[in-house]
């Protein structure tokens, strides 16, 4: 049991780290295709034949660790997955509601009792190297991964029933654990691996996808060409598909403006807001809520001498920050303010809690009550990408007399602070989950054996218990009750941190680009098989 938990937690951490490292600005949410996209589609009717041809170039912010070797991709879904998916496909995909839908797997059965998942594969699919996509290939991929991959090691073994049927045996079976195996494990050709070796395969995907890998240059571009033998007839539409790796945001914007790329991902909200003026450019604003990327600030409450040990002080801080205004000005509306772990429209949101509205007067009162009428000094540790936000927070806290130093630290230092060293004052707090699963959300920080933040500050026992109970609970209503209790314990009873908002990840494309198949959840996904462009 313990091991599983740790591994699962580690998976989440992995994701967090990649969010932390992402060169793009803070932000990003849930979603499949944005609403605007759908509207625009209705306007022009295009015949199927007009969709063929052309090349689409997509700006991404950083070179993925690997986009060819399935275990490496699964280990580092962000930013590997979106780059790998044009060539390597997964067994399933998320739909608009965040549910997993069949893809390479045409169907599956889940047996809670037996703790198994039986998977039925699509037939007649071939890898780019001409070998067959079958149970053996899938088993091979999973065998590579389950021993090393933290979250998938919940899978005990993979059993081949026939050429296109497999049974996954789970060691421990918790709610949502199967999602990963369907969505973040890309299936590559074992033959190609044998030929190329791990290093050769590393950045050379050989899969079943609509595009075949063509060429790449580290930190420059990754190019795919049309897979003429794609298993869905008539797809893809494009001749080729290219990623351009442009870390610098301003360069990226310029590149996009000069139409040297057609889609620009991973841009900061302010850049997007700035560019949201041209009629040629579409801002795709994902709005469906099926996952969370939350940002807050978390104090170190473990030192009893620190003012932050006083819950009144912590609440005062939450009252001192105008999160609505922040969301509007810093994120230009591409983030939604929230006073709890989830958004107000979520089932897990507890409507009975103090909204912690922006109220500096009240903040000052609380501070005075706690014995700090003149405020105090403290520090917020942040990383470069979020320094701007933390400066804004700093400004708000200054108004109620709390003098904050914003210390921008290197990622390595930041990691070591939240892992082991601890910190005085605040750090930025990033939380992340698929869906509104408070269990998966809070486990790494406030669960029974937390590895980040919580292991330094010490988490109240009732919070830990609630996290565990929530995780094991399968029944809907109970889950909502537990979620509300959890929100209440974390936010009202202990006020462990100050939530700011849940962010979205808008991106830019020109209006001649259609059906791009980009969506983000716990990771970004890019499924461009139906992508087409106006001539």
């Amino acid at each position, binding site marked *: 049991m313990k091991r599983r938990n740790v591994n699962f937690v580690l998976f989440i951490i992995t994701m967090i*780290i990649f969010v932390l490292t992402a060169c793009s600005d803070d932000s990003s949410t849930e979603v499949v295709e944005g609403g605007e996209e759908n509207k625009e589609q209705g306007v022009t009717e295009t015949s199927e034949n007009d969709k063929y041809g052309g090349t689409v170039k997509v700006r991404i912010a*950083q070179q993925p*660790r690997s986009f060819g070797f399935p275990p490496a991709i699964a280990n580092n879904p962000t930013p590997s997955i979106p780059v790998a998916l044009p060539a390597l496909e997964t067994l399933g995909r998320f739909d608009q509601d965040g549910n997993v839908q069949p893809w390479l797997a045409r169907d599956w059965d889940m047996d809670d009792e037996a703790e198994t998942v039986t998977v039925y594969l699509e037939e007649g699919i071939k890898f780019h190297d001409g070998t067959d996509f079958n149970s053996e290939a899938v088993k091979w991929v999973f065998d590579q991964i389950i021993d090393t991959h933290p979250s998938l090691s919940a899978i005990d073994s993979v059993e081949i029933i026939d050429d296109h049927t497999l049974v996954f045996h789970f060691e421990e079976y918790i709610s949502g654990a199967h999602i990963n195996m369907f969505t973040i494990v890309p299936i590559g050709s074992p033959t190609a691996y044998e030929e190329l070796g791990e290093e050769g395969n*590393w950045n050379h995907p050989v899969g079943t996808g609509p595009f075949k890998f063509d060429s790449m240059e580290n930190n420059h571009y990754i190019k795919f060409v049309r897979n003429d033998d794609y298993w869905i007839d008539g797809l893809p539409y494009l001749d080729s598909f290219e990623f*351009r790796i*442009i870390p610098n945001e301003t360069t990226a914007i*310029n*590149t996009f403006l000069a139409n040297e790329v057609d889609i620009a991902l991973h841009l900061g909200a302010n850049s997007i807001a700035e560019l949201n003026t041209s009629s040629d450019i579409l801002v795709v604003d994902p709005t469906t809520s099926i996952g969370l990327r939350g940002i807050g600030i978390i104090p170190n409450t473990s030192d009893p001498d620190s003012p932050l040990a006083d819950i009144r002080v912590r609440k005062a801080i939450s009252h001192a920050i105008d999160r609505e205004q922040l969301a509007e000005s810093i994120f230009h509306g591409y983030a939604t303010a929230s006073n709890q772990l989830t958004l107000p429209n979520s089932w897990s949101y507890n409507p009975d809690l103090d909204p912690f509205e922006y109220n500096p007067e009240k903040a000052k009162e609380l501070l005075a009550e706690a014995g700090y009428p003149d405020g105090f000094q403290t520090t917020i540790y942040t990383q470069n990408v979020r320094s701007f936000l933390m400066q804004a927070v700093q400004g708000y806290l200054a108004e109620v007399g709390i003098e904050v130093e914003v210390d921008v630290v290197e990622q390595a230092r930041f990691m070591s602070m939240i892992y082991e060293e601890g910190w005085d004052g605040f750090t930025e707090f990033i939380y992340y989950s698929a869906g509104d699963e408070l269990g998966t959300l809070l486990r790494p920080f406030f669960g029974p054996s937390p590895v980040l933040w919580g292991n330094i500050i010490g988490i109240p026992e009732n919070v830990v218990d609630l996290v565990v109970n929530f995780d094991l609970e399968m029944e809907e209503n109970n889950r909502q009750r537990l979620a509300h209790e959890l929100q209440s314990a974390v936010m009202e009873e202990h006020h462990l941190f100050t939530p700011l908002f849940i962010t979205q990840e808008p991106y830019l494309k020109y209006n001649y680009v259609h059906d791009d198949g980009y969506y983000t959840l716990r990771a970004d996904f890019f499924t461009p098989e139906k992508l087409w462009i106006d001539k």
Partner: protein
Amino acid sequence: MGAFIIKRLFQTIAVLFFVTLIVFMIIQILPGDPAQTMLGADASQEQIQKLREELGLNDPFIVQYFNWAAGVIGGDLGHSIFYKETVINLMSSRFPITLTIGISALIVTVIIGIPLGVIAAVNRGGAIDSVVVVLSNIGIATPNFWLGILGVYFLSLKLGWLPVQGYVSPFTDPIGGLKTIIMPVLVLAATTIASVMRQTRSAMLEVIHQDFIRTARSKGLKERFVIIKHGLRNALIPVITLLGLQLGNIIGGTVLIEQVFNIPGMGSLLVSSVFMKDFIVVQACVLVIAVLVVFANLFVDLAYRLIDPRIKYN
């Protein structure tokens, strides 16, 4: 001459030794465990230990250094954890790009900077001189990344003359390559042009007042002849020193310029490796850049000999 080259090579080796030491030390003073940072947070203790072992991080500093240095001498710059490639492989595509841009910038610097400096010196106090002086002052004071940003904004976005970013080798696609390379090279060269212009101007002004220029004039030579044949050749000596020093600046400049124009050269490799904590690559990049500069300086020293026969080595 032969003895000089050998002596100079020995000196170069001493310098290179210190270069490796410095480069190695930069990595050593990094806080935290490089293995942990490289592998990221998902790494297990075993993985970290394995990497530590692989990187020799458990050995004493001296042993680590000599192992690393021995590898470097044997042409093994290490293995990038992030890219899963040997560093040599990683660089093989980037080094030529940076070199192409750097050398082009150097050539542009020489072609533009020296003649303008000479013209300014000859017309001291005149209109051209004033323009050159003002331009060189501005050129030296302007951050090159800022100049690049302005260039992109006006030349690419507003006027659409040149591409915004990227790199196409001019050797495979002359026209496209030239288009991508022209702005980075000019921006990169701007500062060095300014310095070279200034240096040439002041060196020329100095040389013009030398006795031998008076001698040349006393022979009734044409003024142009006096300036070019007698003046410039002597003025070039300090200019070459400066060019040698500027080489380091040009290579340093590529770090910023490659960011601005998103060119996949050594500079962007270095920057991305710094941010990805791919220390092996950082180490290798700094080393290669330093070695390049060291050898460039060696070359400059040898070039002196061609221009100035007085330089008696030893």
